[in-house]
Structures are given as C-alpha cells and as structure tokens.
C-alpha cells in the first residue's frame, strides 16, 4: 500500500554519518597498531595493518556514497544538504590522511624508527587519535540536538568542538617538538627527510579532524 504521507519519510543521513564516524575511529586504531608495528623490530604484520586501514577506508567510502545516493532532490534535512556533504568530505579527509601517512611510511619499509625520536613520535600519534575518537561522539551528540533543539544540548556539542580544536592545537605542538627532535638527533639526510615528512602527514590527520569540527560548528549555527 502506498500512502503519500509515509513515503515522505526517507532514511536519515545521520545514521550513515554516525556509521562513517565509527569507521574513521576504527581505522585510527588500526593506524595506531600499524605505527607500533613499524617501530618495533620484531613485528612483521605492518602490511596487514595497512591493508586493514585500506579496507576500512573502502567501507567508509561506501557509506559516503550511500549517504549521497540516498538524498534525492527535494529532501529536507535539519541542515542544508550541501553543508552535510561538506562535512562528510572533511570526515572522509581524516581517513585519507591516515592512509597517506601509512603509505609514506611504507616507502621505507625496513628503516624503522630511530630510538631517539620514538617517544615523541608516539606522543604525536596518540595526540591525533584522540580528536578522531571524539568525532563519533560529536556526531551522536549533534544528532541529539537536531532532535531535541535544546539549548543545553547545543552547548554540549559546542564544547566538544572547542575540545577538538584544543586537541588539534596540542597535536601541532607535538608535531613541532618531534621535528625539532629529528633535526637535533638525525644526521642521515634521507632519514631526516622521511621522518620530517612523516611528522607532517601525521599532524595533517588532526587538521582534518579539526576541519570536520568546524564544519559541524557551521551546521549548528542558528
């Protein structure tokens, strides 16, 4: 039976958005494992972890396409449709940055990480994982806001966004500390180039997380 009243309700893009954010989170954990594996001399599963990240990226891509494909012309959302798409692109950008870091790492697959910079590197890795973990949380809370329109809930999301910005700032500091350390301790030009570029690409992950938060802020604007 086809009653026009009910055919107005299409599946919500927020389900997909949340699912996508979860994928990004899982992917970041796989990234962390891959990094640890690369640094450890005994670990030989780096490629497996990298493949896992690539697999997550594909799955997330599928979710992204599904969201875009299921919003025909004339669908009304709590926010502008294109705002939603821009948000999604940024959230997807996080994944691309993660993948990019691992790709760069794999170009020198047997070099390992010099002990002198290892500590700083993992501080940076942790610093970029944190904001990613916060993304899924942000989407969930924002969704609650679009349902309840409560001012309290809106403040909650804004707090998360502020938090994310701070996290990005912290990650920046770590990146600078790491690069300083690299120049101070390494003499091999090839190693320096590889490590500095690595620090920059990992730092870029947090930038994408921050951009995502900024897009969310725009969606919350009254």
């Amino acid at each position, binding site marked *: *039976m*086809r009653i026009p*009243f009910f055919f107005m*309700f299409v599946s919500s893009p927020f389900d997909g958005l949340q699912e996508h954010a979860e994928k990004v989170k899982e992917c970041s954990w796989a990234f962390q494992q891959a990094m640890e594996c690369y640094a450890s001399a005994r670990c030989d599963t780096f490629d497996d972890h990298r493949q896992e990240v690539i697999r997550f990226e594909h799955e997330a891509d599928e979710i992204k396409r599904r969201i875009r494909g299921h919003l025909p012309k004339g669908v009304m959302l709590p926010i502008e449709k294109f705002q939603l798409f821009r948000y999604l692109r940024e959230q997807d950008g996080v994944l691309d940055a993660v993948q990019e870091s691992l790709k760069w790492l794999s170009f020198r697959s047997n070099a390992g990480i010099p002990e002198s910079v290892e500590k700083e590197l993992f501080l940076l890795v942790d610093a970029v994982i944190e904001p990613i973990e916060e993304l899924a949380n942000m989407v969930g809370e924002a969704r609650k806001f679009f349902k*309840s*329109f409560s001012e309290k809930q809106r403040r909650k999301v804004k707090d998360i966004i502020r938090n994310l910005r701070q996290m990005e700032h912290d990650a920046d500091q770590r990146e600078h500390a790491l690069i300083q350390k690299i120049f101070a301790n390494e003499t091999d030009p090839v190693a320096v180039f590889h490590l500095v570029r690595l620090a920059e690409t990992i730092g870029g992950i947090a930038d994408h997380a921050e951009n995502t938060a900024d897009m969310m802020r725009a969606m919350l604007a009254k």
Partner: protein
Amino acid sequence: MAWNIGANDVANSMASAVGAKAITLRQAILIAGILNIVGAAFIGSHVTDTIRKGIVSTDVLNDPHVAMLGAFSALLSASLWVSFATWRSLPVSTTHSIVGAMVGFGVAMGGLSVIHWGVLGAVVLSWVISPVFSLLIGFFMFKLIIRVVLSKGDPLGVALKRSPWFIAITVFIIVMSFLFKTPLGKSLALNTPGAASIGLILAVIFGYAGKRLIVYKLDESEKLRLGAEAIFRRIQIGTSCYVALAQGANDVANAIGPLAVIYFLAKSGTLGATVPVPYFLLAFGGVGIALGIAMSGARVIRTVGSRITTLSNTRGFSVDFSAATTVLVASKFGLPVSTTHAAVGGVMGVGLARGFEAVNFAIILQIMLYWILTVPVAAATSMGIFQFLRWLIL
C-alpha cells in the same frame, strides 16, 4: 467506499500517534472508529451537500431513475478507482475520486453545461490551498514548540507548564467547529461572541484538566527518558482524536454524497435542493469508515507506524494539529479536501521548520500527478458505467 476510506485514510490520523507510541494499536482503532462516526454525523453534512448537489446542477436530476443511476455509477467508479489504486500502490485521494466521478456522471447526463464550474473550481482550488494552509500551520506550530519549549533550559517543566495552552487551542477549534453551522450548534442558536466564549471556557477547563491528567499519569522513568516529548506524547492522544474527528467530518461525504442522492430518490421520487441529509445516513457512513478501520486499518497503521521512527511526539503533534485544523476549516466551508494531503502539508511544514532528519518533498510532485490523473479517470469511468447502465436498464 466508506470501508475503503476507513482502511486507507485512517493511517493519516492514527499512525503518527501509534508510531510515536502515544497510544496502542487497539486504542487507536477504537478511538478512530468512534470519532469518525461522531465527526461524520455531526459535522459532516456540509461537505456531503456540496458533493450531493453543489457540483452537478440539480436540473439534470429531475428524472429520478437517471439520477439514481448516475449516483450509483459515481459511487461505483470512485470505489473501483480507489481499489485499483490501492492494489497498484498509487497515491490517490478518495476525495478526488468521488468529485471526479460526480463530474463524469454530470457530463454524461447533460453535457458540460450542467457542471457548476464555480463550485468545482472552488473545490479544486481548495485542493491546492489545503496543503499550503496545513504547511503554514505545521511550520508555525513547530517553530512555536521549539521557541517556547524545546530550546529552554528545562524543556520538560516548560512543556508541562505550557501544556494547558496546547490542549486549549485544540479544544477551542473543535468546540468552535461544533458550534458553528452544525445542526447541534444551530439548535443552541448562539451568536459569534457567545460561541467564542463557550469555546474559550471549555478550552480553559479542558486545558487545566488535561494538565492535571498528564501530571497524574506521568511516571518518573518516562520523564527521564523522554523529557518534553513525554508531555507531548499525552497531548498527541488528543490531537489524534482531533484528526479522526475532522476526517469523519470531511471524508464521510465521499461515500455518503452519492448515496444520499439514491436514498432521496428511492424515498420521495424527487430530488429537492433543500432536503437535508439525515443523521442516520451520515452515521451509516461513519460506521462504514469505522468498519474499514477495524478490519484493515490495523494492518496499515502497524506497518507505517513502525516505519516512521523519526516522527517524535512534538512533530506528531504539530502534524496532527495542522492537518486536522485544515480539514475542519475546509469542512466548515463545505469543501471536500483530502485528509492525506492536509497531513502531507503538515509534514512539509514541520520539515521546513527543520524538524525532520530527512523528509522527501518530491512526493508532492507525485501527488500532483495522480491528482491530475484521478479526476479525469474517475470521471471517464463514471461516464462509462452510467452509459452502460442506462443502456441496460432504461
């Protein structure tokens, strides 16, 4: 025909309440059934009049046999088309079908000149206006709820405090529609200020009684889980009744209009322009709708009610309120409008107020398409059946 209305259109009024878990399926069917009968019997007569004699000139109905055949073929063709549409899952309106069928019979009988184009124009215009009107009410109602309730620091408390207002507005409109123009209101012979004050008094009483009832019924776990939605869950029971009432008032004409023609001819042999539609016929239509609800409405409500998870109580309230007000106002003017389209307008209004996670407006184009299709198809079928019967019987 009444059965069809009951089976299909009831979803508009009750599914949102069932989907939002304001009432159970069984309660929904019972309430919808009773209120459809009440609405049909007490408010429905104007619309029935319009369908019975407003669209087709009564001049052509002088020959009682022809008129009877015509009314019968109109009823049959509208039923056929609606059944076909239900089977093929096409979004058509029972209202549009019967209007189209009446036009078809009129044209077959006396050519294009017997149609009251003015009345028909008003009816068609009301089809365009009713979703727009409903959209506006839905939009402003939901915006109002956001502003005065949802965005506040303590939505639950505010919702409770303001609940008498929301109940009172609903009650006021229902009372007004009862008092104006219905035989009941006429027998009381009230003037406008008198009716308005009665409406106001009843609205205030119901508003406060309603609040007491909500406070009494509300338990703590529900408060915590749902917040302000819990209050609107209670109020929504009221608005769903409101929709069912309005639906009875408006849709009964679809089935009873032509039937009334047959009834009078069979009884008196002539068709006067001023004979009123008797209560029992209207009530009969209401019962028909109620039977339709009872027998297959349950299935419809269940499937659609569970599918709409996004329709929370505040949204449901806004949609119900706008749809019912539109339909009731239209009934007052004697215009047969589609409950479905009024409800669609309400959803669009709430959607424009950014109330839904995703709502597809493209359906409006589809509705327009079938709307344009329904009238000629029902008209042509009605003409065909009429000519065939005339050849067969006369």
